[in-house]
C-alpha cells in the first residue's frame, strides 16, 4: 500500500511538472548533469525494490497463513534455517554490492567540481541575505535575481557567501553545493536545451529564506550575447559602494531600492569591481575580528562602514578569473 502511494505521489509530481511547463525540475531536466542524476535515481529505485518486494509480498501471506485461527503447521522451537539464512544475508549483500558499484561511478562522474568539456562561461555566485549575486568576470557584468546561460556551453561556477552558510541549487541543471563565507566551492553544469527554470537557496538563513530564488533561463548563444550586451549597458555599475548596499538584508525589491534600480525585477549591473569575488572571501582572512556592523546579514550591518580588503584572497589551483580547475574544499 505504502509503496503504491509513494510511486503515486512521485508520478503525480512528475505529471504536475510536465503540465507546469516551462518550469523544469529535477524530474524534467534541462541539462546532462541533472539528467544523469534523474536516471541514477530511477536505477536505484529499481535495484532496491528487489530487496523490499519480498516484504510486501510475504508479510500478508505469512500473517494470513499462520494466523492463530488457521491452525496451520506450527513449529514453536524452529529458530534457524541454513537455507533461509543464505537468502536473508545473500539478497541484501548482492544488492548493496550492485548499488555500491553504481554509486562509486556515478559519484565520480557527477562530481560537481569536475569541469565539463568545452569553453566554459565563468560565473561567480555570492550568497547574500536573501538573494544571489552573479558575477560574469569575463563579460564584465553582474546580475542579482536572475541567471541567464547559453545553451550548449558549459558553466563553471564558483561560489561563496558574504553572510551565513547557504546552499545553491538549480534542480533542472545540477544538484546543490554549499556556499560558505571565506571559502570557495564549485559547481559545473550545462544546459542542453532552451528553457526556463528556477534556482534557489535551500539552506535556511532567516525570515526571507523562501524569497531567495531566481529565474534561470537557458537561451541560444546569439540571444545570450545580446543579453550580455544589454546588461553591460546598464546604468548601474557594481562598485564597492553598490556591493555594500546589496549586502543589506532584504529580498530583491528591497535591494533594488537600496541601489537605485528602476525596476522591481532582476537587477543588471555593469563593470564589477576587479577581483570582487576574491576580495569578498578575503574579508574573513584579514587576521582581525570583523565588527558586526561590517558583516552583511547582521542586524547592525552598516553599508557605509563596511569595507572589503584591497587584495583578493590567494587561491590554489585558480585559473583565469578564478574559474579554472579547482581543488576540493578550497578555503585558502
Amino acid at each position: 500500500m505504502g509503496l503504491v502511494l509513494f510511486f503515486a505521489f512521485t508520478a503525480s509530481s512528475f505529471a504536475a511538472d510536465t503540465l507546469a511547463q516551462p518550469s523544469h525540475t529535477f524530474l524534467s531536466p534541462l541539462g546532462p548533469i541533472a539528467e544523469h542524476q534523474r536516471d541514477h535515481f530511477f536505477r536505484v529505485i529499481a535495484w532496491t525494490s528487489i530487496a523490499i518486494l519480498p516484504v510486501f509480498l510475504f508479510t500478508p501471506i505469512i500473517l494470513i497463513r499462520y494466523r492463530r485461527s488457521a491452525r496451520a503447521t506450527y513449529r514453536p522451537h524452529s529458530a534457524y534455517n541454513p537455507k533461509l539464512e543464505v537468502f536473508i544475508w545473500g539478497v541484501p549483500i548482492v544488492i548493496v554490492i550492485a548499488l555500491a558499484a553504481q554509486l562509486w561511478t556515478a559519484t565520480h562522474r557527477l562530481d560537481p567540481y569536475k569541469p565539463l568539456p568545452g569553453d566554459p562561461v565563468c560565473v561567480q555566485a555570492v550568497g547574500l541575505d536573501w538573494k544571489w549575486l552573479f558575477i560574469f568576470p569575463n563579460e564584465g557584468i553582474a546580475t542579482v535575481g536572475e541567471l541567464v546561460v547559453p545553451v550548449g556551453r558549459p558553466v563553471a561556477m564558483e561560489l561563496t557567501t558574504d553572510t551565513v552558510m547557504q546552499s545553491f541549487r538549480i534542480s533542472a541543471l545540477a544538484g546543490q553545493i554549499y556556499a560558505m563565507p571565506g571559502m570557495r566551492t564549485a559547481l559545473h553544469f550545462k544546459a542542453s536545451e532552451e528553457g526556463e527554470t528556477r534556482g534557489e537557496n535551500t539552506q535556511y538563513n532567516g525570515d526571507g529564506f523562501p524569497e531567495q530564488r531566481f529565474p534561470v533561463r537557458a537561451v541560444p548563444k546569439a540571444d545570450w550575447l545580446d543579453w550580455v550586451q544589454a546588461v553591460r549597458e546598464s546604468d548601474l555599475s557594481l562598485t564597492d559602494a553598490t556591493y555594500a548596499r546589496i549586502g543589506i538584508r532584504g529580498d530583491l525589491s528591497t535591494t533594488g531600492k537600496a541601489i537605485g534600480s528602476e525596476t522591481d525585477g532582476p537587477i543588471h549591473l555593469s563593470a564589477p569591481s576587479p577581483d570582487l569575488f576574491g576580495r569578498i572571501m578575503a574579508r574573513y582572512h584579514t587576521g582581525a575580528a570583523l565588527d558586526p556592523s561590517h558583516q552583511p546579514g547582521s542586524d547592525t550591518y552598516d553599508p557605509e562602514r563596511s569595507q572589503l580588503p584591497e587584495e583578493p584572497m590567494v587561491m590554489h589551483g585558480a585559473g583565469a578569473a578564478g574559474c579554472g580547475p579547482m581543488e576540493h574544499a578550497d578555503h585558502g
Partner: protein
Amino acid sequence: MADALFGRLSVDSLAVLHVFEDATINNMVDSGAAGLVIVGSVAAILVLKVFRLWTPLFRDWLFSVDHKRIGVMYMALALVMLARGVIEGVVMRWNQSAALGGGPLDPDHFGQLFSTHGTIMIFFVAMPFIFGLMNFVVPLQIGARDMAFPVLNQISLALTATGAALLMISLVVGEFTTGGWTAYPPYTGAVFSPGVGPDYWIWAILLSGVGSTLTGLNFAVTIYKERAPGMTLMRMPLFCWTALVTSILVVFALPPLTAAAALQALDRYLDFHFFTNDLGGNMMVYANLFWMFGHPEVYILILPAFGVYSEISATFAAKRLYGYETLVGATLCIAVISFMVWVHHFFTMGQSATINAAFGIATLLIAIPTGVKIYDWMATLNLGRIRMTVPIVYMTGFFFLFVIGGLSGIMLANPSIDFQVHNSLFLVGHFHNVIIPGVLFGILAAIHYWFPKVFGFRLHEGLGKLAAVLWIVGFSVTFFPLYGLGLMGMPRRSASFQDPSYEPLMQVAFYGSLIILLALTTVVLTIVVSIVYRRHLATPLGDPWDGRTLEWWTSAPPPPWNFAVRPQVTGVDAFAAAKERGDVYAPLDHYEPITMPAKTSIGFVVLVTTTLLGFAMVWWLWWLAIVALALLVGAIVVGSFYPPTEITIPADDVAREDRKWRESARQDRGVTRDEEISALNHGRAAPDMVAAE
C-alpha cells in the same frame, strides 16, 4: 546592555502578552501556546491540590529511585512533549497548506516552530521514550533488583526534565532559536542571532546531554554487572542486547554533541571564534561534530525499537525468535557502521567525490544488517501461531512503511541523488518515514505490550487497534506527499512558497496531520478508558501474553524488589522454558532479606537548580546562575553525608508478598491465547496447544 538584576529580561519577553499588543493570527497562535503552558501548569497544580496528590507525588515518584517508577516518569514526560511536538507539526502543516504567496504565520514564528519541533521530538520525546522503556524493562528482563546506580538514574531523569522544562519556558518567556534542531552556525552565532533563542537550545542540549550520557553509562554497567545467575550475554532477551548497544552508542555519541554545544556557548558568551566567519572560525567543524553525534543518534533511537519488534514477534507468534545470533550480530554491525557514515548528512559541502563515495557506500552497508533484521522478524512469524494484537498491527505497519523509508534512505545515500534532494521536503519525508514507523510505532507497540506489567491492567484492545490504524493511515497521508514535493523542488523549512503546483500535495499533507492528531488523541483515550475499566482489564498475576522472558515471571505491578528470589537462568527465553518444564508458581521455602536503595531528594534538587541555572544563563542573570550552581554543589556535598542510602526489607515481608502472588496464581485457572483479550485473563497463561513437531 544587560541589567545587573534582570539581565536581558523585560516585560516584552512575555509571549502571552503579544496578542494584546497586536491581535494578528500569528500572535494569537504565539500567545495561545504560551497561555496553554501557563493554564496547563496551573491546572496540574490544582488537580494535585484537590486530590491531595502532593505528598504521594513527591514520596512515591519524585523521590523514588525505583527504576520502574523512573521509567514511568520518563514515559510521562515524553508523552506530554509528544503532544506539543505533534501540535506543532499540525500548525506547520496548516501554515504550509495556506502558504502560497505567504502563510498565516510570521516567518520568524515558523522558524521557531520547526526548531522546537525537531529539538523536542528527538531529545525530549524519542530519547525519553527509549530511556523510559529501557528503565522499566531491562532490569526486569535480566532479573536484577534495580539499576547499578539508582541515584544516578534519578539524576539523569532530572537533567532530561530540565532540558524539557527549558523548552517549555521558552514558549512563555522569550523565544526559541530559528536555527533548526541542528543549530548550524554561523547562523546561530551571536552576530546573526543575537537574541536568547540559540541560548535556550544550547542549555537544553548541554544539560540533558549530560543526563543522557550518564544514562548510557548506567545501563552499560547494569547489563554487564547485574544479570541474574546463569544469564550469559548470549542468553539475554534481544531487547536487552539492543539496550546494551544503544547505551554504548550513547556513551560515544553524546560527547561530540555536548562538545559542539559547549563550543557554541563559548562563541556566543565569551566571543570565542570556533564557528564564526572571521578569525579562523569554521562552521564545517561544527557540522562534522554535530553529525558524529547525529548519525549514531538515529540508531540510539531505533535499535531499542528493533528490540521491541524482536520481543513482540516471538511472543505473539508463540514461537522462538528466529536467528537470535544473527540479530545480535546485525545489531552490533549497525552500531559499528553507524559511526562511519556521518558525512552523508553533508555530501554537498564540497569534499572530494572519493570521500563522498566512501561515506555513501558505508551508508549502503547499513542496509544489509537492517534488511536482515526485517527478514528475521518475518521468519519469526513464519510457522508461528500469530495473534493479531495491537503490537502486531503496529509491527505490520512498520514492515510496510519502514522499507519505503529504507528505500528513500538508499537513494539519499547516493551523493549524486542527494545533491538534488538534500535540504528538500524529500529529506523531511525520509527521516519521518524511518522515525515514525520505526521508532514511534515500536514505542507505541511496547507501551501496549508492557503496560499490563507496569500497572497491572491491560490497555483496551479495540481502541488500541483503532489508534494503530489511524497512526498508519495518518503517517502515510502526511508524509508520502512530502516525497513528491521534495522531488518537485520544494526546500524544507519554507514558511511560504511561490509555486502553485505545490499547493495540492501540501493540503493533502495537512489533512494527514489531522489524522495523526486524531491518532494521538485515540492513544490518550485508550489509556483513559483502560483506567476506567481497569478492574475488567486487570492482570495482577503478571503474565497476560504468555510471555517468554523473565519480566513476566513476577506480579504486575512488580514489587519494588522485582523478584523475591532471583531466578536461575539456563537458556534464552528463560520463562517460556520454565513454563514448559512445569509449575512456575510453586511455593518457595526460603526467603532472604533484600537490600534496596533508599529514597532521595537529590534528583529533585538537581531538576530545580539546573533549570534555574539554564534559565539564568539564557537571560544573563549572572547572580542567579551563581546561586543555582552553589545550591547544586552544596546539595550534592550535604547529601553525600546524609544517611541512610540503603534500606533492608525483612525476609518476612518479602515472603508474605511473594506467597500471596504465587498462591493467587496457582488458584487461577489460567487462560489460553483464545481468551487472551477477555476479562478472564488475570495474567496466568494456561498451557496452550503444542502442535505436532
